[in-house]
């Protein structure tokens, strides 16, 4: 197992980060292991509701691992183990009575590579609600329309809802995946490099979307594109070798970071 010195993250006072309401997600001393190798070290973090929080850091720093802890996607990996407390609205996400399916309904996810089902656009979006038992046609129509509007795709596809999702462009497919995630009305949307396969225009559309989405839900985005984090997020966490080095409001991270390692990373002096 890797051994490394304990380095305390520079974490702004929680009161500064979450004025008023309690954090949407709170992590207390979270460790994560892939078998014997530790991927996250004592992560402490409070994610405010209805804001965009970005995780940045070099490849292998643990940011995606942490993201996947938040909807227990890592449960599917053999030998994976989580320690510490992960609270969603104060509820222990790894508690004994938690229904993982229910949790994942509340915590939606969009991946780097868009992964629409090889089905019509309409069925992609209606998939989740149908799985939950929705059968009423007009109710489903309403959910599909609302979700596609929420994902900024409605105007482009409203006349061809029954065309295959695979006929859409890459950027449209990604927004379809966002609509599919929105259809089950999640509280939280996790986005793992959602724009890295998209051209600048498709990327800009998704980034603009985030400003609307955060009115309804809490967004956590992992990105390699620092300018993207700077543009869209309210708070940014910088990870390095499994540690949360610094977590603060985005403006501070990109203008006056406290930790030298954060400074070196955001100025491109790293390596």
């Amino acid at each position, binding site marked *: 197992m890797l051994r490394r010195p304990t380095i305390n993250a520079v974490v702004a006072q929680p009161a500064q980060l979450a004025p008023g309401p309690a954090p949407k997600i709170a992590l207390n001393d979270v460790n994560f292991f892939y078998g014997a190798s530790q991927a996250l070290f004592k992560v402490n973090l409070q994610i405010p509701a209805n804001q965009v929080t970005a995780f940045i850091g070099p490849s292998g720093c643990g940011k995606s691992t942490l993201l996947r802890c938040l909807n227990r996607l890592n449960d599917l990996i053999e030998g994976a183990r989580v320690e510490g407390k992960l609270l969603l609205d104060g509820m222990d996400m790894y508690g004994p009575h938690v229904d993982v399916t229910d949790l994942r309904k509340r915590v939606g996810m969009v991946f780097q590579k868009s992964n629409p089902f090889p089905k019509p656009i309409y069925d992609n979006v209606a998939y989740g609600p149908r799985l939950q038992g929705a059968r009423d046609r007009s109710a489903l129509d309403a959910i599909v329309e609302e979700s596609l509007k929420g994902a900024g795709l409605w105007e482009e596809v409203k006349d061809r809802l029954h065309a295959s999702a695979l006929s859409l462009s890459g950027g449209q497919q990604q927004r379809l995946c966002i609509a599919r995630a929105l259809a089950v009305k999640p509280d939280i949307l996790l986005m793992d490099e959602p724009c890295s396969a998209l051209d600048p225009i498709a990327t800009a559309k998704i980034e603009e979307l985030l400003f609307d989405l955060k009115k309804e839900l809490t967004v956590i985005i992992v990105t390699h594109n*620092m*300018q993207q984090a*700077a543009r869209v997020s309210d708070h940014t966490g910088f990870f390095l070798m499994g540690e949360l080095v610094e977590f603060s409001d985005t403006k501070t991270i*990109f*203008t*006056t*970071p406290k930790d030298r390692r*954060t*400074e070196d990373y*955001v*100025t*491109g*002096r*790293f*390596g």
Partner: protein
Amino acid sequence: MHRHFDDELQSLKEQILRMGGLAEEQVQGALRALVERDSDLARKIIENDRQVNTLDVAIDEDCLRLLALQQPTARDLRFITTAMKISTELERISDLSENICERAIELNEEPQLKPYIDIPRMANWALKMVKDALDAFVNHDAELARKVCRDDDFVDDLTHQLFRELMSFMVENPQTITRAIRITFIAKYLERIADHATNVAELVVYLVEGKIIRHTHG
């Protein structure tokens, strides 16, 4: 890892220093033109202001280019935005030197009102502030920068002292009013030069510590 960007930042820093050196020379020259009653020198200093203006524009263009193309962050961002503002301050210092020269040319056409004692003191003090502020910029020395901010009080005191003295000249003998007012202007210009040095020093504190201290006397 070497960054090409670092070479650009270094060259920007050198341009600021070149401009700072020119601005200092302008103040020194203006003072000499006044004290030595050398109107030719005054005209030369006025002419030299153009060089400072040219550098001001060049620095602005460089900063804008770096902001647009490099999308700098953190200390790089602070450095570039600070450089842009410092260049404006230095340009103003040179303008004020030009104003001193204009008043000096006018004064040189009349008999000297009184020996220049407080004016050179003020000028040297203001110059030291400019020099210290630029040193603080080069060495990322927030401590020295804060000292410059404190030094400004002394120039303010000297200005008031000089005002009182010139006022008494004017009350005693109205014939002196034109000259006394011109000298008063010069004192005000020097006081402004010290203010610009203070602004540079405040910018250096922001550059080093990320703290905005202007308007706070911090």
